[in-house]
Every structure is written in C-alpha cells, then in structure tokens.
C-alpha cells in the first residue's frame, strides 16, 4: 500500500481543518498556510520523482480491489499537474500573506484556500469517475465561498454567473456518468475503458462524449461556454483570482484529456471535428476579447480562455506529438497564468487603478515588477526563449504533420494577436509616463517587508519559467512520456486493474 498518493489530498485537508480550528489567531493561520503549501509542494515533487523512476503509481482505497473500490492513480500527467499546482499554491500562499486584507483572513480565507487545493488535487489523482464528480463539487463549493469572500457587489454579481453555470456543468457531467454506469456497470475509469462495448453498440458514444465535453468545457471555459469567466475572475482579490486562473480551468482541461483519451480513444471524425472547431473558437474569441479590454484583470481573464484553446487543439489532433504539446503547454500555463494575475493585482495596487490606460510609470518606478511581467506575458504570446514558445511549436508541428492547415493558421494568428494584447499592456502600463511627478507619490506606500512578500513569489515564478524556457528538454521529455501514456492506455489500465 502506497500511502504517498493519499498525501496530496490529506495535507491540504489537515491544513485547512487546523486553520479552521485556529480561526481566532491570524498568526497561527498564516504559519499553517505557508507550512501546508510547502509540504504540499514537497509531496508533489516526490510523486513526480517516483512516477518518473517507477512508472504509474496506484493505491486502492481501503484495500478494496479495483474496480470495486476507489483507486488513486498517478500517471505522469497527474503527477506533473500535482507538482505544478503545489508550486503555484506555495507562491500564492506567500503572496496572500500580504495580498489578502485582514477581514478576509478573519472570515476564513486560509481554510477555504486549502480546501480548494484539496478538491483540485483530488480531481487530478482519482481514478474513479464518480469520485471525480465529488472532487469537482469539493473544489466548486470552496471556490464559490472564495469568490464571494469580502462581500463586494461585483463579487456577488460575478458569483451569480459563476455558480449558476457551474451547477449546470455538474448536472451535464453527472448525467454522462449515469448513462455510462447504466450501460456498462463500471465507474472505475480503467475498467470503463475496457467495457465501453455496449455504449458503442448502442451508438450512444457521441452523446456521452458531448455531455462530458459540455460539462468539462464549461469548467475549462471553452468556446462557446466561456462567458462566465471574464465576468467573475476579476472580482476577487488578486491571490484568489490567480489560483482560479492558474488551476481551476486546468482541472477541466485535465479531465478532458483523461476522459477523451481513455474512454473515446477512437478519433472518429465527429468528435475530432467538434474538438478542433471548439479549439479554434476558444483561441480566437478569447484573444479578441482581450484586445478590447481596458480592465487589466479582465484582459488577463480573456487570455486565460485563449490559452485553453491551444490545449484542446492538441487533444483534437490526437497524436502523441499533439498530446505532448498540449501537456507541455498546460504544465507551463499554470505558473504563467498564476504569475500574470498576481502581477495584475500588483499593478492595480501600485497605481491605484484597474484601467490599463490610466496606469503608467511602472517600468520607471517598479523595474523588478516590470522584468517579472515580461517572462509570463511573452511566454503567453509564444516568443522564444520562453516556455510557451516550445509548447506552441510542438502543437504547430503536430498540426502540420496531420495537414490541419486551417487550425494551425488560426493558432499562429492568435499567437500574433496575443502578442499585440500583451504589448498594449506593456506599452500603456509600463512604458507610459507616470501620472505623478515624484517617485515619493508613486505606489501603495508598502513597507519593504510587504513588498518583498508580494514581489518575491512573482519573481520566483518568472525565474523558474525563464529557466524552463531556456532549458526545456527535461520538461518536454516528461510531457512526451505523459503523452505516450495517454495514447497507449494499456499500462494505465494494467496498473489500475492488475495492481
């Protein structure tokens, strides 16, 4: 029995529960928060190492043999996402020490943050379809509470949309599970992969696939189901928005990658066509939305949507190279989006406005912040030597290998438009001359300690991204290994059912 795999769920659960018990003491909560996130990152790193050396890890809960019990599985894709989410969780946990106001700390930011991480990790690691639904609901309720924490009118407004659409997504996902179970009698994903026969005979495969696509597509903010995201993600404070942007949409994308490769491995024309159209629409409309936005976090929220399109495109190609590109892109996109939202929050804090055009002077007065912005922003646009470039390059190569000229053209065009969008932010917020005459009048007047808590995580995230971009080989080899496990599901099924 491998207890290591339980830790990604157990560590945040314990941290959250202890923080809840210590709700009278801000200091204890803050210590627990950083401690819990550090341990979580460590656990993620150990899991990646073990998966890399020993292959797929599984653990049967309560020693019930699969497919009767619930199996936790860590294949390279799950392990990579666990480690990356632990990494950004630590960055956000440190930023939140200074970035979250005292009222929100008192009303339970730290417990909710760790319960959210528990839901996210549970969704990444479970091998059971109904269990995946339960983890989704855990992360949803935690994200609902985080979104309205602080009780501002815009937050309530965004939350109405976010909550409503997510409950519909859950219903769609749940009915797909119900239909699958009724026809196959299986809930374990590896078991389902082997017993999809009756579903195919009845011709219900596209129906189930589309129900999954709607359910996960809403959560991953895919075209045409994305409109809730730019309506809600900019309303909470920056650390909450950053963890949402970095991780929540990725859970939807992870589920799509997992379900479509395991249960619908036959890349039939219909599903593939739908996926590619969805990918193109997501990329284009996301970046169009970003081009006309003036509010910095809403602009970034539209870019979150656009990036999801690239991953779905890789899934739509359904080749090892396409999936490797998609996985590489997801893995680097998590820190990119997290650090962009954290920087967006800092830009608002320093200039006192959310409107990009009214900012200015950041390059002159906050050079560290400006340098930290370059890496994730230009990684998003896909410029070398930043990691986004390698992801996009692989995806474009995979598309050209399949003669998918149209979608490749869209992807390249969107890369150009993304560059335009981030260059606009750069030009206006950073290069434009400041609205105040004197350096003394600039900024939020934070002390040195507060500023290092806020800028430290951002700088570290950018530094790591820069190093990964310059030396992408190990991460790409890892993504390729994960992609091989997705196209050849034999080892996954054997590890779950035979273990």
């Amino acid at each position, binding site marked *: 029995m491998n207890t290591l795999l339980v830790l990604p769920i157990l560590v945040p659960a314990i941290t959250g529960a202890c923080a809840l018990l210590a709700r009278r003491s801000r200091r204890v909560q803050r210590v627990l928060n950083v401690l819990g996130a550090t341990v979580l990152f460590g656990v993620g790193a150990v899991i990646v190492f073990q998966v890399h050396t020993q292959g797929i890890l599984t653990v049967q809960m309560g020693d019930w043999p699969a497919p009767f019990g619930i199996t936790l599985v860590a294949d390279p894709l799950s392990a990579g996402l666990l480690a990356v989410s632990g990494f950004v969780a630590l960055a956000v946990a440190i930023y939140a020490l200074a970035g979250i106001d005292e009222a929100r700390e008192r009303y339970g930011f730290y417990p909710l943050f760790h319960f959210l991480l528990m839901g996210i990790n549970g969704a990444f690691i479970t091998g059971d379809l109904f269990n995946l*639904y339960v983890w989704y609901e855990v992360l949803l309720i935690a994200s609902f509470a985080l979104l309205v924490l602080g009780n501002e009118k815009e937050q309530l*407004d*965004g939350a109405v949309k976010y909550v*409503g659409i997510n*409950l519909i997504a859950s219903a769609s996902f749940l009915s797909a599970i119900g239909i699958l179970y009724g026809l196959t009698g299986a809930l374990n994903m590896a078991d389902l992969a082997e017993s999809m026969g009756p579903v195919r005979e009845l011709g219900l495969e596209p129906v189930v696939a589309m129900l999954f696509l709607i359910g996960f597509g809403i959560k991953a903010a895919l075209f045409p189901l994305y409109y809730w995201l730019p309506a809600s993600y900019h309303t909470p404070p920056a650390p909450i928005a950053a963890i949402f942007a970095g991780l929540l949409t990725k859970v939807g994308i992870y589920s799509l990658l997992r379900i479509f490769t395991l249960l619908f491995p036959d890349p039939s024309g219909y599903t593939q066509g739908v996926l590619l159209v969805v990918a193109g629409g997501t990329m284009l409309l996301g970046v169009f939305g970003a081009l006309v936005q003036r509010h910095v976090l809403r602009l970034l929220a539209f870019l979150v949507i656009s990036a999801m399109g690239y991953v779905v495109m890789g899934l739509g190609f359904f080749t090892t190279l396409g999936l490797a590109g998609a996985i590489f892109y997801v893995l680097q996109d998590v820190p990119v989006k997290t650090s962009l939202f954290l920087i967006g929050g800092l830009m608002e804090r320093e200039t006192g406005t959310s409107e990009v055009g009214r900012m200015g002077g950041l390059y002159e007065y906050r050079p560290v912040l400006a340098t930290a912005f370059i890496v994730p922003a230009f990684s998003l646009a896909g410029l070398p030597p930043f990691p986004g470039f390698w992801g996009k390059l692989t995806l474009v190569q995979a598309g050209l290998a399949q003669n998918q000229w149209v979608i490749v053209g869209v992807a390249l065009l969107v890369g150009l438009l993304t560059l335009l969008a981030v260059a606009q932010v750069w030009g206006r917020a950073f290069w434009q001359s400041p609205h105040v005459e004197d350096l003394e009048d600039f900024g939020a007047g934070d002390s040195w300690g507060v500023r290092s808590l806020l800028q430290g995580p951002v700088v570290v995230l950018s530094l790591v991204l820069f190093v990964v971009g310059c030396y992408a080989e190990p991460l790409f080899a890892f993504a390729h290994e994960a992609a091989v496990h997705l196209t050849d599901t034999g080892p996954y099924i054997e590890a779950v059912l035979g273990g």
Partner: protein
Amino acid sequence: MEQITAIVSGVMLAASFYLLMRRSLLRFVIGLILLSNGVNLLIFTMGRLTRAQPPVIPKGAKLPPEPFANPLPQALILTAIVISFGLLAFTLVLVYRYFAAGRTIEADDVRTSESDAPLDVDDQARRLPA
C-alpha cells in the same frame, strides 16, 4: 415502469431548461433544483427498476435472482442529492444577498461586474455591510 420514469425525467429536464432561460434569478434557481432532480431520476432509471425484488444474493449463489435492480445508482443518487442540497442552499443565499444588495433579481441587470465604468481599487464604498 422504466419508460414512465424516463419520460418524467425528460419532462423535468425540459422544464428546468425553460426555467433556466427565464429572466428572473429566482426562476433560474428553481430551474437548477429541477435540473438536479431530473438528472438524479435519470441515473435512477439507468440502474433499471424492479418492484419488490431486493437485490439480495441467496446462499450459495453468486448473483441475485433475475430480474434485479442495481443498488449502486441509488447510492450514487444519495451522494448527488446531498451535494446538490448543499450547493443549492449556497445558491439561494447568494441570490438573496444579491437581491438585498441590488434590490433586483432581473437576470438582465446582473452586470455590475462587467460595467464599462472605470474601477478604483481603493474605493471602500463598494464594500457592502457584512
């Protein structure tokens, strides 16, 4: 029996979609309630229905006597009911808070977060009393 529950489930889903597209947030919430119950009925029906045939395995046998209903979907529904109850309670409170703050439950008016007016992060006036 299965045909009847299948049709009932379909009608409930259709009614819920109609309510979800209405312009009042209260009707939207009622639509969500109907939606989750319609889905639960769908899962229940997919597990087959038998009357007065408990799926108890007789001594020495490996399977209960045919016809039997699969008991697991009912356990799944129980979980789904509990989860959707919690989420709906949250949604109701949220819509109530929204009504208390803005005095409206018209879905078309829910656009404070997407307004074009410039926002000021230091503005404390937009924070509502707890």
